């Protein structure tokens, strides 16, 4: 069901613009995750991708007048927070043992 939620003003910016921004954010994040060598940068890129998806969810939720999309965003934020804690802890541990967070230099699990 398409349409505005009751008591909410119609969108000033057209929804297509949000979709373009979200897609661009996701592409930038993906490129960063694949190309950067610093683990922290990769991590930030992944966060970027997550938030691109969040934006997408919100846009569609607004467009469809459905609160389920907003619900999922909350879950994604919560999981991302947990992931951030674990990921950063791993990087700290990595740095302590290898004195680097360059992922190309810690390619240990191979044949």
């Amino acid at each position, binding site marked *: 069901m398409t349409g505005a939620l009751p008591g909410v003003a119609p969108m000033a910016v057209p929804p297509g613009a949000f979709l373009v921004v979200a897609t661009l954010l996701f592409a930038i994040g*993906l490129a960063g*995750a*694949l*190309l950067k*060598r610093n683990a922290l940068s*990769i991590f930030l890129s992944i966060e970027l991708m997550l938030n691109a998806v969040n934006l997408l969810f919100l846009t569609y939720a607004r467009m469809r007048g459905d609160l389920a999309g907003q619900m999922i965003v909350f879950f994604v934020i919560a999981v991302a927070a947990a992931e951030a804690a674990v990921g950063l802890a791993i990087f700290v541990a990595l740095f302590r043992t290898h004195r680097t967070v360059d*992922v*190309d230099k810690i*390619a*240990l*699990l*191979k*044949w």
Partner: protein
Amino acid sequence: MKQLWLIPALPLAGFLLNGLVALVASSMRAEKESGADHPGVPLPYAQRLFHGVVGVGSVGLAAVLSFAALVPYALGSMHAPEGLAPIVQKVYTWMAAGDYTVDVAFRLDTLSALMLSFVTLVGTLIHVYSVGYMQKEEGYGRYFSYLNLFMFAMLTLVLADSLPLLFVGWEGVGLCSYLLIGYYYDKDFAVAAGKKAFIANRVGDFGMVLGIFGVFALFGTADFSFVELAKRQVLAGNAPLGVYAVCLLLFLGACGKSAQGPLYVWLPDAMAGPTPVSALIHAATMVTAGVYLIARCSALFVLAPDALTLVAWIGAGTAIFAATIGLAQNDIKKVLAYSTVSQLGYMFLACGVGAFGAGMFHVFTHSFFKACLFLGSGSVIHAMHHEQDMRKMGGLAGRIPQTFRTMLVATLAIAGIFPLAGFFSKDMILGSAAASGHWVLYLVGLFTAGLTAFYMFRLVSMTFFGAPRGHAEHAHESPATMTVPLWILAAFSVVAGAVGIPAILGGTDAVGRFLEPSVAHPPIGEMAHGLEIGLMLLSLGVAVTGLAWAWRWYGRAAGPVEAVSPQAHAFYEKTGALGRLVANRWNVDEGIEALVLSPFRKIGTFLWRGFDALFIDGIANASAFLVELLGDLLRFFTTGHVRNYALAFTLGFAALVAYVWMS
């Protein structure tokens, strides 16, 4: 008695107790001595006391219970006109398949009562003897636990009320026989002898198992109620042929266990075990299980007269064959082993001519004098510090007088001298053979009786008479735990025949009438009284001739170790090839090796090299090689770079999206 199951259960409990304590104690000893093995170090006194008390006590108690059960039963049976009905006690249902159930049930009838009496009595005496004989052995606890286990299996065999349960005991005694033959497991020949016994018994058991199936097919049941059905000739299926097949299969089983026909080869080798084991398992009890089986199934065998005739011929053939080998053996235990094979042949001869009662009577008397002889030989070996070669003995009569006297009594008994036990049982067998008209079998039996007397008195003479050879001068008498059982067994060797004195000598043939309700007694013909007396005197004469001959050659033998008796040696030289053949045990072992074992080994080698190693292993190795190859290729994808992996699954996801889009 209400609880027959207690009789086998007591030795089983003894086995568990002895085995557990022996295991724990030996592992503690090994720990204390930092793993070092000290063979030949006797156990501490307290532990030996425990094993002795548990081992002898459990079997002794079982014997007391047995006699408490069988004496009232036997007396009642003797006075009832038709004999008492068998006492059958079901313990629990073992297997149930539809309407058919196999129960663990025990049966006391006159046949099992007779077996029970000597199995428990001789068993207890041999346990007592073992206390003295084995006291310096490190494996004392292991020995007693095996011996207890054997008694459990043997009593199960004797008391079982069905062929499947009998088979449990049958295999149990076989296992214990194997374990005890290989008691000296650090000696190669003992291990090989144990395996030989086990495998030869497997050949017989193949027939035994098929025979049990056959009985089930014929009668629809495998418990001993089939005996009644057989008596009334209630048969199912293709009866006449089936009965023959079943009889022959069961007889094959009996041959394996009782060392008949070519399957005898394991018994002489079984002498590698400790001597009390030879006495208990390989002379008095286990090896008679085959005769017991035939007597138990006698009603069935009567329906197949030709099979019965085969039994008689195999028995007689084995009797004379083994006796000839016994003539030329120099190992004291080997002589007794061949003598056992020969005497078992007599028992089968008796069964074969239809005199099952006579066969069982000989089982009964034989158990006493053969146990006495074996224990006596153990005492001699003990006195001679483990010397078994009779050529290195001689003149021991004065040095170990108690052993000498008891062995002499048992020898006269086995030779069939009036009025000792062996005379009555052997004469009953020979008389039955003659009465049934099998005169050839009678003559074979008569000749074998002469041979028996000869080789047994040769044994006694070489051991106890003549000049001392080897270390015979330093022999010493055995302790009381060994001599007392000898005396008791010697006493039974004298009087055990009293239960079977034939009518013609003023007796009542009590054992025959006693067994009448449990075994078949086909008519085997009557003999004139004069003829019967004549045959008795003839067999006595043959026995005395054998004794006298042995005395003439060996009684005062003073020759060197290589030719103890010059006369016998001269005779041996004269016999040439035949003598060498006899001395070499008719080359039976070599013949079996050439005709049976070596072809089998060749087939086995072919299957191993040609089929297993090439074909089966080839398949396994080829598949392993393929997997390895695949792994070698795949491992290049594992770069360890997280960015490669990230790219891989980005591409993968893109492909998935593309696929969904397309379809």
